[in-house]
């Protein structure tokens, strides 16, 4: 079975758009973080699809790096969330506007 490259790319576009919308739409910071993961995965799908299309392993290697970096990002991000929650007792993004100019 051979899926034409446009289909995974279209799926990636959809996932990316949903994730991007979620980042803007949701208040809860932890869900925003999940939406970022969605967007990263959309990018990964693009990488893998194009890697197959171009016959280049570099695309899959890039996905490897993205997965690794995402793990690091989530670890640090959730640690920050824990600290933030212990300060404000909430994860509502509106409550973290103390850098307002």
């Amino acid at each position, binding site marked *: *079975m051979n*899926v034409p*490259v*446009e*289909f*995974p*790319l279209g*799926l990636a*576009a*959809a*996932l990316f*758009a*949903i994730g*991007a*919308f*979620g*980042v*803007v*739409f*949701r*208040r*809860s910071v*932890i*869900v925003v*973080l*999940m*939406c970022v*993961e*969605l967007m990263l*995965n959309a990018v*990964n*799908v693009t990488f*893998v*699809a194009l*890697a*197959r*299309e*171009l016959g280049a*392993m*570099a695309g*899959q*290697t890039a996905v*490897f*790096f993205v*997965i*690794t*970096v995402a*793990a*690091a990002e*989530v*670890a*640090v991000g*959730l*640690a*920050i969330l*824990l*600290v933030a*929650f212990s300060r404000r007792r909430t*994860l*509502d993004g509106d409550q973290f506007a103390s850098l307002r100019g």
Partner: protein
Amino acid sequence: MIAFWVVALLAIAGALVVVLHRNPVYSALGLVLTLFQVAVIFALLEAPLLALLQVIVYAGAIVVLFLFVIMLLALEPEKRLAAPFPVAVAGLVLAGLLGFALAAASTVPLAGAGQGALPAGFGSPESLAASLFGAHLLPFELTSVLLLVAVVGAVVLARRRS
């Protein structure tokens, strides 16, 4: 093709659950669903190793971490789900435009695409390893440093201040 459509629709359904469900636990489970479908797509696209890695790291570690934090903080379903209405609408419009633009861009023909049969062993552990430890050795090593920094940073942040 049928498999792809099933998987793709499940993935989008999962993503929508992430974005729209009030309960963060369901959001996380929706994320797992999507990630799992992405793993299947990887497998369909000649990347079996990445599919397994995706399950191990994303489903097995990252989302579990999300769930763990949600449970640790005992987060309730949110009463105020969304951002203010104008922001939400603007986000919807812009995200829709972006999705459309990306999808449209993917129809632009690629230079050097579809050069016939893939090389033997494409996507196998050996080929990924050759790429990782060959051309991308430096990024690989830097990633390990990044992980170390992340571990130290997470520990420092999460540690109780005595």
